[in-house]
């Protein structure tokens, strides 16, 4: 459902509800990260364990993940593997006291974008968060594009012809003349096309065509 929003509405502004997930079994760490992130106007949603996070995953919107390496039951590396299996590509930043080389290499090969070694300077956390949100924006744009393409593929060739004309700003009457169809037939195709695209607004159709880079 967030995909649909990407395709049809402008991306939410950066200030509106930036959210990051903090997964750490250490309460003090969760509290201090929440305060640090708040200073950068990022809300933190804390999780006490990796399984807790996985349980909630289905309802979460994409966001950066701050992930502790050492945790009981399921550690940070195991969660990275679980995310990779589910093809979740949200930016993950690992946190640890000291990152041993093999561990760091493994995490980065599993897709973690960086390692914060505790105690870390606030500036480094801020810079990493900025990088993470940039990555998410790029991913959302990519996703929106794919979604728009997918929707356009549902159209029949005739509907696509009409879509192209509509996007150029032609009226039903003009389209009827161009395609040698009756006004009534154009209206019918157009209504079906809009239904297939899942929208009623002309502006959405034009946004869709331009976002699919036709």
């Amino acid at each position: 459902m967030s995909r649909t929003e990407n395709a049809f509405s402008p991306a939410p502004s950066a200030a509106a509800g930036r959210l990051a997930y903090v997964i750490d079994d250490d309460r003090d760490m969760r509290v201090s990260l929440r305060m640090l992130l708040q200073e950068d106007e990022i809300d933190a949603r804390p999780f006490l364990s990796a399984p807790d996070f996985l349980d909630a995953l289905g309802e979460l919107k994409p966001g950066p993940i701050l992930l502790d390496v050492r945790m009981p039951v399921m550690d940070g590396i195991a969660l990275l593997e679980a995310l990779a299996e589910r093809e979740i590509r949200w930016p993950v930043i690992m946190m640890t006291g000291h990152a041993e080389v093999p561990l760091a290499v493994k995490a980065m090969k599993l897709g973690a974008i960086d390692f914060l070694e505790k105690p870390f300077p606030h500036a480094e956390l801020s810079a990493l968060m900025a990088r993470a949100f940039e990555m998410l924006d790029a991913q959302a744009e990519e996703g929106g594009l794919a979604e728009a393409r997918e929707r356009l593929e549902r159209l029949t060739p005739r509907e696509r012809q009409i879509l192209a004309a509509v996007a150029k700003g032609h009226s039903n009457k003009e389209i009827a003349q161009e395609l040698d169809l009756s006004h009534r037939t154009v209206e019918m195709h157009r209504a079906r096309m809009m239904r297939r695209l899942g929208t009623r607004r002309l502006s959405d159709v034009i946004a869709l065509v331009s976002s699919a880079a036709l």
Partner: protein
Amino acid sequence: MGIRCLLYVSESCLSWPEDAAEVDDLVAVARRRNEQLSLTGALIYTRTHFAQVLEGDKAVIDTVMESIRADPRHRNLVVVADEALEARYFPNWTMAYSGPSFYVDRQIRPLLSQATDPARSRRAAAGLLAFMREYAGSPGGPTR
């Protein structure tokens, strides 16, 4: 026959965002040249620093280092390890890491300041070498 292994670090003179294309060019040229010269190893680029490990014939490495030192795409080159090996660790020459990671950059940065005491800088160099071997080569031990 023995192999020589040399590790250096340097500061990048490239600037974002053109750096990505310049590094791609550099890697393409280096890969061809190193293959011809039977040099193996790896390169790391962190947007602020470079680190490269080269394995091969002693004289060949001397020649290649001369041209690397003269390359305007970096400055303040410091050789942090130069040792003899029984066998190579890297099966070929690769770009091990190219990206903005602070963690990777932290493996390089301490080695650029000459002020750190020798024991510490030896440890840092060993750490960086281990990282590069783990990332690109065979961490378990030398290859045949």
